[in-house]
């Protein structure tokens, strides 16, 4: 009886998954293997994927670098928040969440306004005699945009793990003669690995498929895989190739998160994937 009830509770979610995730996935797969003109089965979309491998490589590179920078920036922040009093924790947690309340498109456009050659930063630099710098349309600007947009996704899971670490373990390590550095490396960090893994995943997955940040902040040379897919659907009139690319991207994301889980020795159960 009890079991039946819990099954019933999961029905809405299952229906949701089937209608909005599984069926669309099936449609994507169908398109990936059909010809745009005749609708007949074909491998040609899959065969064409080879030409896009460099783009995939570039997208992975950009998002891995962004995820690592997010980790370096986010860990101290999460650590700091986790060791404040509960009230301060709530406040700081809110502050981390706050930027996410605003549209991500607007926040990226704001960076364009700041960084462009005639933007606020360059106008100020010019006025004080330093001269204009090449800020926008560089790989650095794209990384900046990714880090800026996805940093909260790193801080929040890290914080959630760090705040739960039993302080008695830290005290024990200190009592047993560990220096602060040793305590961190041997106790805190290993215990926070699940947070690191889910943080990395949550930054990597949206970053690898983004199509707006690179368009706005990158040069014409930084065209990422998300941009190519968007183009296939919007301009290219070739949804079939777009579907094949999406399929490959999805497999790539699964493989990358799998590798990440393997490397960190996590069994994957702690990983939060949104």
């Amino acid at each position, binding site marked *: 009886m009890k079991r039946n009830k819990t099954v019933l509770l999961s029905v809405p979610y299952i229906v949701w998954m089937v209608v909005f995730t599984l069926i669309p996935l099936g449609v994507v797969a169908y398109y990936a293997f059909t010809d*745009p003109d005749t609708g007949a089965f074909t491998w040609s979309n899959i065969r064409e994927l080879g030409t896009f491998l460099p783009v995939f490589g570039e997208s992975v590179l950009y998002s891995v670098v962004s995820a690592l920078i997010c980790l370096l920036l986010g860990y101290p922040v999460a650590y700091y928040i986790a060791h404040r009093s509960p009230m301060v924790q709530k406040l700081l947690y809110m502050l981390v969440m706050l930027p996410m309340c605003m549209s991500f498109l607007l926040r990226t456009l704001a960076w364009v306004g700041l960084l462009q050659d005639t933007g606020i930063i360059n106008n100020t630099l010019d006025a004080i005699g330093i001269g204009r710098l090449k800020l926008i*349309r560089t790989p650095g600007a794209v990384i900046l945009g990714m880090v800026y947009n996805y940093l909260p996704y790193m801080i929040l899971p890290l914080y959630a793990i760090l705040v739960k670490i039993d302080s008695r373990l830290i005290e024990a390590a200190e009592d047993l003669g560990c220096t602060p550095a040793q305590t961190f490396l041997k106790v805190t960090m290993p215990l926070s690995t699940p947070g690191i893994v889910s943080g990395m995943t949550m930054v990597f997955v949206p970053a690898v498929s983004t199509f707006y940040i690179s368009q706005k902040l990158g040069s*014409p040379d930084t065209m990422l895989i998300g941009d190519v897919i968007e*183009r296939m659907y919007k*301009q*290219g*009139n*070739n949804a079939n190739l777009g579907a094949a690319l999406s399929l490959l991207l999805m497999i790539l994301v699964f493989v990358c998160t799998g590798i990440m889980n393997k490397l960190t020795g996590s069994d994957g159960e702690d990983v939060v994937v949104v």
Partner: protein
Amino acid sequence: MKKILSLLLALILILGLTACAEADAAEGDKITLNVYNWGQYISDGSDGYLDVIAAFEEKYPNIHVNYSTYDSNEVMYTKIAGGGITVDVIIPSDYMIARMIDENMLLELNFDNIPNYAYIDENFRNQTYDPENKYSIPYTWGTVGIIYNAQYVDEADVTGWELLWNEKYADKILMFDNSRDAFGIAQYMLGYDVNTTDPAQLQACADLLAEQKPLVQQYVMDQIYDLMENEEAWIAPYYSGDYLLMADENENLEFYLPQEQGFNLFIDAMCIPTCCREKEAAELFVNFLCDPEIAGQNMDWIGYGTPLSAAKEYMDPEMASDPVAYPEDSVLAHGTSFDYLPASVSRYVESLFLKVRLS
């Protein structure tokens, strides 16, 4: 907690139901007309100009206009071809109209509901894209030329399309983010027919565009407004009417038509797609836009040429004789129009363009 939750759910359901009911009621007494048009392509009431949609809704109080925009013919086509949406009026360009007619995506117009068709000039009727003039009514016409900032660009360099390939202005050049217009420029440069389907010629165009890429700051469509007005970029190929809008904001901007090489001369026309639900209201809207007084005030703002000579009476005289909007016939003789390319060719052009972008 459970009670609150169920109450909330009930509330959401009721809201949903009333929303449906409202939509039904709207169909009963207030019609929603979905108009899908290019960005910055109808006078919107800014700077004291006429708000065309508000004027239409005032004249026909039982019609509500739901207005949305696109920034290229291809984007519009993809959205309509994808299905699942209701659009009553669209304003595509010539070659896209031909394609949509060919693919049975447009409805024949009932000219009894569009008496203002009588005002359309004879030379804008029965165009090649719609030879019997059954599906479309011209809205505007215009040219594609080079917009440049005279403060930074040396007049001596403004000799033709090659300005877009001038290394002196590297990183200050914008380019069309739309394969048809981008390839068109390469075709004029190389002296090819703009409607060529020859793979070798198209490949040569792609090579030329790839050569240009290191100099290009960004590939853009409607974003061009900000970039040119703020002088973030200095040189860009774009549509004549949009130039006039930009020139209002930055007086250093100039427009140049490369006559010797040729340029695109286009007509954008109002059509009713097959996904239309309110054909009569759509025809009322089309008819309204062909009213010389409305068309005149509309053109004052959007800056394109009007196919209604009668509208010029109602226009700002300066605008009605603007050389950019109304070049002399001797200049116009050098313009060519885009024809519809078969789907496989346009897909090939698009894949070449993507390769240029990824090179």
